[in-house]
């Protein structure tokens, strides 16, 4: 490893300081606060708090509502990550084939990313609300008893669709860049070697896209876990019942709506551990199969 020599010992720290400050203020401090609060029990008016040790954790982990939320999150996150990535990959591959107006299509594809989550949620709500949704009536005419306000599965499908739609753009952008980085001659060599387009996609293109796919897997998982709060809040509010209450939504609900600060803090600590574990797992076991060119 090359060692860079700075003219003064303090200079490197000075250069790092802004980034360190941001990380400290916006991650370590709140994380420490959450950790501290997860050990406390507050009275309903927030006037006093007592140390209760791990009681909050014990209570949260034995709460059937919490376990339900874990399940909802797993289904939701896995579906969003998988769908957002596979649809984006499909679209990116199709966009590669376009000869005229490539830039125009790409620009159009990227727009949804610029829409704020809550707005995206409203958009989907307007389309699929059972009473005033533009597309709800056609669905009912087709014989589907569409009602995300009452039917748990319908509600789940709706937020998955909205969250996926918003993330496709981002994934699309990265897949297009990834596809462009694959030398054309490799696909030509495969064509001469006798591979059909489908076969060369799965044996050449897809494996060579692995670094991009892996990066997106990590990003999409985090997206589905955290950044979809706005969509869920706007579309279902966690309902019907608790059918679409993900872990993040429950943290918000218990802490800021029901004002059970201690338990909410315990949940966010658990969530942090889950995300760290998940990301570590992805790097440890999936990245090993990634070939970096």
């Amino acid at each position, binding site marked *: 490893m090359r060692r860079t020599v700075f003219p003064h010992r303090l200079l490197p720290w000075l250069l790092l300081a802004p980034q360190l400050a941001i990380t400290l203020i916006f991650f370590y401090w709140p994380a420490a606060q959450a950790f501290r609060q997860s050990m406390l029990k507050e009275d309903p008016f927030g006037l006093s708090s007592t140390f209760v040790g791990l009681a909050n954790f014990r209570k949260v982990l034995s709460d059937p509502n919490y376990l339900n939320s874990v399940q909802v999150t797993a289904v939701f996150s896995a579906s969003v990550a998988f769908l957002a990535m596979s649809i984006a990959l499909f679209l990116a591959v199709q966009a590669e084939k376009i000869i005229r107006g490539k830039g125009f299509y790409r620009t159009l594809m990227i727009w949804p990313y610029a829409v704020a989550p809550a707005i995206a949620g409203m958009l989907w709500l307007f389309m699929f609300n059972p009473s005033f949704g533009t597309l709800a009536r056609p669905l009912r005419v087709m014989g589907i008893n569409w009602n995300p306000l009452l039917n748990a599965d319908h509600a789940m499908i709706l937020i998955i669709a909205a969250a996926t739609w918003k993330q496709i753009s981002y994934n699309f952008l990265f897949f297009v860049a990834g596809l462009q980085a694959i*030398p054309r*001659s*490799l696909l*030509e*060599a*495969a*064509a*001469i*070697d*006798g*591979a*059909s387009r489908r*076969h060369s996609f799965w*044996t*050449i293109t897809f*494996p*060579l896209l*692995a670094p991009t796919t892996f990066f997106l897997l990590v990003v999409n998982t985090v997206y589905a876990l955290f950044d979809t709060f706005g969509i869920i809040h706007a579309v279902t509010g966690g309902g019907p019942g608790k059918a679409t209450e993900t872990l993040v939504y429950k943290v918000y609900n218990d802490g800021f709506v029901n004002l059970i600060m201690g338990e909410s803090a315990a949940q966010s600590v658990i969530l942090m551990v889950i995300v760290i574990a998940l990301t570590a797992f992805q790097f440890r076991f999936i990245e090993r199969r990634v*070939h970096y*060119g």
Partner: protein
Amino acid sequence: MARILLNDVRKSYSGNQVIHGISIDIPDGEFVVIVGPSGCGKSTLLRMVAGLEAITSGTLEIGGKVVNDLEPRERDIAMVFQNYALYPHMSVRENMAYGLKIAKMPKDQIEAQVAKAARMLELEPYLDRKPRALSGGQRQRVAMGRALVREPSAFLLDEPLSNLDAKLRVQMRLQIKEMHLRTGQTTLYVTHDQVEAMTLADRLIVMNKGVAEQIATPLEVYQTPATEFVAGFIGSPAMNIFTVEAEAGGVTLPGGHRLPLSGLPAGSLRLGLRPEHLNLAETGQPAIPVDLRSVERLGADAFGYGVIAGSDAAMTLRLPGTTQAQRGDRVDVAPDPQHLHVFDPTDGRRLENF
């Protein structure tokens, strides 16, 4: 193995023609080299044979079958790319076996084929390595191996040696020649290097600006270049070509010197003289005076670069290695009348029968 037949093959990109009708009949087992400067369309022509570029008009037959509209995989050809195009995520073994697996060859047979090619190309120790762990020469051999194992009916190579250093290039050139003798496969080889072209080819296609200027054996191309372009392109150092005025009994060279060459059609002509066919003139012999501007001594030979005295027509001379001539000297040389090349000044075609 197969005969390849090109009949007036053309290529246009949105109305802009880049290949202007090329016809050649390549019999089974022949080694044909397509040579020309960069941008002459030689790679495009090869890619059209491979099926990587569509043919705008004309027909292409491989093994007696018109393949214009067939996909590359249906043409039974193998190709070596300039950048080798090895699959970076596969080992050498997997790279070579890729095509065979697709062809659904039984596993043990694939093993045997790969082992055979690896032995021939001395790649056995590297079979389990990824391409990035190989040197340029080894990668080149893997690319050859990948093409060889499939035993295709035709073998296409697109500047396969241009990324190698000079020494390795000579080695690989010999290896390619030997491999062709051993397998006897019909081969099309694209290069801009005239040494590769001359040494490998049974026949040459010399291309310029999308036109096949000459299709002939290397020796014919050297001895009787069909156009002024071919004359200047093939041969090293390049042929000296300049404009002369011919009249009965002789020609007037640039600088006003006269040479008693008879039988040339009267008028303005382009005269070509190869450096190796210019000898030091003996006293009294009609000669061309050349003012030397620099002399390169290569040991066996020396090359003198200068101009015809009194003009700015460049002349390159091949002198004996022991020559005393140096910069600033005037050297008198006499052309060998057996080796005159005369070209039409308007279209550059070779003029014969004078």
